[in-house]
């Protein structure tokens, strides 16, 4: 069977610095959402792949998060560049939801060094309508609204673009906290807050 018929597998990138595993149930939650709303063939469980491993190049979307200083080793940096050069997308979320936090500071520095300086993503970008429509841009998280972190609602995500396409998406909104719960608990929510996660995955797979 050709590779194009394989399932989408959610991949969490493991990097040597920091706490890459701070949102352990987020992948299952997004897998559940992809299956719940789309007919994308999706693997039932996520994988964790070291960013320094060549295996990382086999995934169209790599998710990374953490609270602590975010720095790539040389092999991680080289692989991350290769992944993006080959059309992959990297989604990095600040689990601190704090623009003064060490993750934000070091992650933006590392993104700039590895991929180029990230810029604010316009709130009418295609990623906000790739599946669900978010006319106001990235949905706010409860951590932003309840005054945690920097007590700010961040209006824009940051992105490094490859032409019109996003190659690295960086969020300071702490989706890692927002989406980090067991998918079975989704039934208690009136509105599914992981819908934007579906948009990210659909965007990464179709653009």
């Amino acid at each position: 069977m050709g590779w194009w018929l394989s399932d989408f597998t959610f991949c969490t990138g493991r990097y040597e610095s920091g706490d890459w595993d701070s949102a352990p149930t987020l992948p299952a939650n997004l897998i559940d959402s992809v299956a719940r709303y789309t007919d994308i063939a999706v693997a039932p469980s996520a994988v964790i792949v070291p960013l320094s491993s060549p295996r990382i190049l086999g995934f169209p979307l790599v998710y990374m998060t953490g609270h602590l200083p975010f720095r790539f080793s040389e092999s991680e940096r080289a692989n991350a560049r290769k992944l993006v050069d080959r059309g992959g997308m990297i989604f990095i979320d600040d689990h601190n939801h704090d623009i003064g936090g060490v993750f934000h500071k070091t992650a933006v520095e590392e993104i700039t060094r590895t991929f180029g300086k990230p810029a604010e993503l316009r709130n009418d970008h295609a990623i906000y309508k790739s599946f669900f429509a978010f006319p106001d841009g990235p949905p706010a998280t409860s951590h932003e609204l309840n005054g945690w972190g920097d007590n700010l609602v961040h209006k824009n995500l940051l992105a490094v673009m490859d032409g019109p396409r996003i190659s690295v998406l960086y969020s300071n909104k702490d989706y890692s906290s927002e989406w980090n719960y067991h998918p079975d608990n989704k039934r208690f929510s009136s509105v599914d807050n992981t819908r934007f996660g579906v948009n990210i995955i659909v965007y990464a797979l179709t653009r």
Partner: protein
Amino acid sequence: MTIYAFIRKTQRLIVLTAAVKGVALAASLALLIFAVGALVDLPSGTVATIVVLSAISSLGALAYRAKMIRSPVSVALWLEETIPAMHYELVTSAESRIPLPDLERSVHLDHIQPFVTRRIAKVLTRSASMLLGASLIYLFSPATSFGRGRVHSGMARAFPRVFPPINKLASLRIRITPPAYSGLRASEQTNAASVSALAGSRVVIAGPGTPEGVRATVDGAPVRIAGDDDTWSVTLSAVKPVSIVRVAHNAETRLIVVETVPDRPPQVVLTAPLRDTTLRTPRYSVLLQAETSDDLGLRQGYFEYLIVSGTGEAFSGRTLTSPPAHFESRTGRLQARLDLAALKVVPGDLVSVRAVVRDNNTLTGPSIGTSDTRSFRIARADEYDSVSIEAAAPPPVDSSAMSQRMLILMTEALVRKKKLLTKQQLVKESDDIGFMEDRIRKRVYDILYQTDSPEGPGDTEEVESEIQAINNPDLKEAYDALWDAVRSLRIAEPAVALPPMRVALKALDRARLAKRLYLRGTAPRVVVDISRVRLTGKEKGISSMRSPQAVADSSRRMLLSGFESAITLSKSDRRLAIEQLSLLRVRALASSPPLATALRDIIDAMEQNRETAAALIRARRLLATPSVTGTPNGEWGGG
């Protein structure tokens, strides 16, 4: 002609000659003053003043000298003074103004006329010589002389030089002058189709002949052609990654690819310490060492310490640096001693160390190189050796621990109200708690011995493997304590059951923390039941038809077709084929550097009329390799 008429005519000639002499003298003086003024670098205002004063003086002197020609008598006297054979015949005739027959017969004007002509010619010749000499001095004076440029250009227009027709693109010299900070020497190549220049270099492309008729563009934009009578030139700066320079003369064109080589950032490798460290106490001193190198030259380096404090989701950081070390070469070594006590770190802090080096690039930099990071973590007392900051998602053991806490509260309540209960009530309530405690024991057993048996351990303890239990002493202790608690609760002795219940709670808590110790890399694996949840979401997306995307590797196909067409073209027009290969190389620089190198070898071989087969084979192999953008085998592409 009468004598008087002759004298009047001579007077007019002398006046005219004197005027010409005066103008020539003034002009000569002015030219000489301009030339001398440029030689000694006098201000233009001073030069102009001197010229005006000199002109006035010379004209005044001439006017004084011209007193002899104020009247016909004066002219007649001048003639008689210079011709001794005359005996005042001319003066007499000039004074009488009427013709006197005797005098008219005795004076032979035919003899006087040549004499007058010679004298006037002599004066005019002297004036012309003087003016010519002054003009020559002026023309060879410095270029800063007043008005000299205009004179030159006017002369150039009046007397254009005729050059033999030459091929102005026959011999192109490309001179590359690297930026001063690099310390590299300027280099020159002749007739190269492609050159490499360090970023910021000055590239001058020059050819023979005047700039007339030569046209040049850099990346399609016309540029100015400079030059003189012997050479034309185009100058550009190596700023863009690749610049395509096209020069043309008549119907001939030449293409030169200027590839900008960036100044690479310095490399730095942290050689000591080799790995991260977790410490019990914040008292530690370690030697930091790093090796560094740069392609052009290093300037400065230091170690950077990032100290992160905090727990949970509240972290703060501060950055410190070691004293900088200065370099004056391309390689260097950094060394410093890190004393954690001096950084005033406390348990729970994380100190990240890396080496930072800057190079000598004063043009676009400095470029900064950083090493990998090493971390020193000071363990908290309750989380010694933990590498995880955030608590893990509650594992089954954790939920057991919560139940255990709840059962302890229930047992304590039962002990307090024991006196108020009948024996039957006490037995029933104690037995109920014992039943729930036994369920916890069975769950702990499942985790401890990794069994999926639905019946649980039952009475099979004698066959348990102690080896498995040794691997988790906390759970084993909890399991044993739970056994004791269950036994006491089942015989209605809740007070006796409480101590082992508390021991079990503490042991379970330790096991939970222990689980966190090794949480990294072992995140709980949640398997989603895809078929159960498939398309059960109430909200609907807006999935729509999308236009097909371009083939991922279209650039390689474009390179391949361009390559084949260039090779075909090389049989008929070698120069055009070289240009096409140069353009292909520009495209390949970004997508496939090895192919760009192979194309350069082909171009060099074609230009030097060498064998191209080996380079062609290499390029064809590179073009035939599988797509770099294809999806390799893996989780996504496993198929």
